[in-house]
């Protein structure tokens, strides 16, 4: 069995409750941190661990912590981003639902490291039952003295609360999340200033993903150096992967970074291979925003190397032949899937989730959705593919927040790798009227019909 950091205790009966969690070594990191370590020493351990933000951007967490403005004298906040909304990603929910105290322990230890006395967990509104689980767990932690004034008799005090969103993907963007936490519309802020200087209520704030924070107790207990030994190269530690799509065993898996994509998809320990043993057609390795990979680039890179589950290997080849680790939303497609339909589906998602603040995203995402809908339903024209390419190119990089890029990349990658399928939709409109058009007749078998 591979090394587990986050899910090692997941199968212990009752681990959801405070008592069982505590009996199994829970909250040890808080004791160790507050009694024996300085805040800066914890930050140094996190830096040494090489832990990269698990929300999608992969920014080194220790480095992010070190940016927090400690000179201004303003109160500081740690906000946990539990607004998990990236299509294909459902790992944070799994952690919070099954082992809520791990996150709370991580929040306390991390808040101590940052010198934050008031911290929040921002959870998406749809996860309402998880919100209640966390809320109760926080009450248990207060009752046991892990939260509140003078924790463990020290002079460190911390208040921790859970806050719920109400249905907006954009609130996963850290400044939109802060706006939402302030009771406003989730419009991302223009940076700079970054939250580390001016975040929640204008105070220095760090926003970290659930999985990132849940790694902190292990790092504090075992040292950053030990953490860095797990994984491969700059991809240290383990990673939760949310696997979905046409695989035998969808679900959340903790992997040691560095295993091959082949092993992850086909071994019994993880996805268990393709459903009905149909051929694999495409893979989105990191959530809907990252580029889709065609079959020949899934198990091997363009250079012929094994494709590994690491930040580096997944992005090998750049956008031309690679993708990204993203948030670990691993979506597998077999030959019955229609890439055009799927791209339209994502475009619809982004158009629906655009906050509407800046023009390229507000207008561009809606436009892409309309053009893709036309193509998918057999009303596309030969100019539409180039038009689509042009629109995505003009959104990318020109928006306030990364949602514009996230909407543009899947469209670009789909056209880059599956242009023939778009052309098929345009040349054979009658054949794509039914939404399951490739179920009976996979594209591979009719590909030759497309004329260049």
């Amino acid at each position, binding site marked *: 069995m591979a090394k587990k950091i986050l899910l090692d205790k997941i199968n212990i009966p009752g681990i959801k409750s405070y008592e069982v969690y505590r009996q199994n070594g829970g909250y040890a990191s808080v004791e160790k941190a507050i009694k024996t370590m300085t805040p800066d020493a914890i930050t140094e351990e996190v830096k040494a661990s090489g832990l990269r933000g698990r929300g999608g951007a992969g920014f080194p967490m220790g480095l992010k912590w070190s940016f927090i403005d400690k000179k201004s004298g303003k109160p500081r906040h740690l906000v946990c981003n539990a607004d998990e909304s990236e299509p294909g990603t459902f790992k944070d929910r799994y952690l919070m639902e099954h082992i809520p105290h791990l996150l709370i322990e991580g929040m306390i230890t991390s808040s101590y490291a940052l010198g934050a006395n008031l911290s929040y967990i921002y959870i998406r509104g749809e996860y309402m039952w998880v919100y209640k689980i966390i809320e109760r767990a926080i009450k248990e932690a207060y009752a046991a003295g892990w939260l509140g004034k003078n924790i463990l008799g020290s002079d460190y005090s911390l208040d921790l609360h859970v806050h719920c969103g109400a249905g907006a993907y954009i609130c996963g963007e850290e400044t939109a999340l802060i706006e939402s936490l302030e009771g406003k519309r989730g419009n991302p802020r*223009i940076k700079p200033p970054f939250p580390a200087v001016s975040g929640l209520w204008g105070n220095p704030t760090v926003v970290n993903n659930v999985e990132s924070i849940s790694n902190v107790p292990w790092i504090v207990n075992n040292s950053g150096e030990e953490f860095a030994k797990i994984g491969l190269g700059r991809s240290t530690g383990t990673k939760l992967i949310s696997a979905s799509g046409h695989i035998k065993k969808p679900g959340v898996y903790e992997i040691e970074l560095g295993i091959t994509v082949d092993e992850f998809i086909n071994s019994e320990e993880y996805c268990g291979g393709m459903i009905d043993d149909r051929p694999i057609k495409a893979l989105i390795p990191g959530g809907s925003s990252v580029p889709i990979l065609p079959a020949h680039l899934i198990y091997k890179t363009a250079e012929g190397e094994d494709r590994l589950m690491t930040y580096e290997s997944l992005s090998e080849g750049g956008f031309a032949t690679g993708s990204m680790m993203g948030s670990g939303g691993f979506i597998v497609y077999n030959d019955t899937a229609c890439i055009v339909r799927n791209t339209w589906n994502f475009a619809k998602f982004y158009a629906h989730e655009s906050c509407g603040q800046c023009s*390229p995203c507000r*207008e561009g995402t809606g436009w892409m959705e309309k053009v893709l809908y036309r193509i998918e339903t057999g009303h596309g024209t030969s100019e539409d593919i180039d038009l689509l390419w042009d629109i995505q190119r003009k959104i990318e990089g020109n928006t*306030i927040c990364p949602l514009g890029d996230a909407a543009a990349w899947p469209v670009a990658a789909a056209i880059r790798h599956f242009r023939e399928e778009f052309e098929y939709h345009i040349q054979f409109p009658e054949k794509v009227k039914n939404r399951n058009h490739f179920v009976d007749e996979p594209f591979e078998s009719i590909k030759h019909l497309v004329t260049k």
Partner: protein
Amino acid sequence: MKVIIDGHEIEVEPGTTILQAARMMGGPSVPPAMCYYSKLEDTGGNCRACLVEVSKGSDADERPMPKLMASCKTTVMDGMEVKNLSSPRVMEARKAVTEFLLINHPLDCPVCDQAGECDLQNLSYQHGKELTRFKEEKRTFEPENIGDKIQLHMNRCILCYRCVKTAEQITDGRVHGVCGRGDHAQISTYITAAIDNDFSGNVIDVCPVGALTDKTFRFKSRVWFNKPFNAHRDCDKCCGKTTLWMFGDEIQRVTARKDVYHEVEEFICNECRFDHKDTADWVVEGPRKFEKFSVINQNNYTRKLDTVVIDTEKQILKGRDQDRVKISMTNVPFKEEESKK
């Protein structure tokens, strides 16, 4: 601090944005601004029309910024080098933003009161295309009545947020805001309510397009048929300094005085704007100057114009005398005998 924009150098105070620095310099290198408004706090960054390329971050860190930056929100660093007109990337992005702003815009300029003083028109003249690539039906909104003084045309709105900031910062109670999200976000009061307080009329002046117009001026005249005069009156609510838009002796519209970037010099109250349409109420200071190349100025010919001579005119109907009978051409009068041929 020293900043170079399109090769021109200027010294500015720390904290100045690129756009402000460009405005200090003046000339063609000033990026267009559809949402930024220097008289209001916390505006800008939304429309993306003012994106520029920062080809050198500063003297301390020479690296260029990878993305185009919103010049209205990016403060200058010492030694920064900015490309606006000189950057093909910027020009392309600006064309793209113009196209995005226009795909759902009704393009109803012929019946829009803003036509002639519309920032979106100006942007389109400079960066727009003649043809649209947008085949779908344009987005429309249900009309909303926000009172008897201000007309809201949501279909024309580009969501610059200026009117929201105006209501927040200038008036004593904001009742409208941005509702909905994405491409269906809209300016609304949610429950149809009048936007009515002493300074609410300023939302008309700050609106860059024809989304908020003056109901008391509605369909009265095209703006270029009006003659603008600076005038003032004693007002206990505001500065009382306005521009009167006259048609003959009639005051058809009163606005605040606007500068070269179409921003008001000083905000005015609703009483001055809506309730004083009699010249006796005002001390008229004299004609207001306009940008030389503005649409409004086209009706204020200050120089003698050359007679346009089209050389081909004489030749054009040669050999087609049948047609010449039907067409009257002053330069080539039709002679009596010709008709008898």
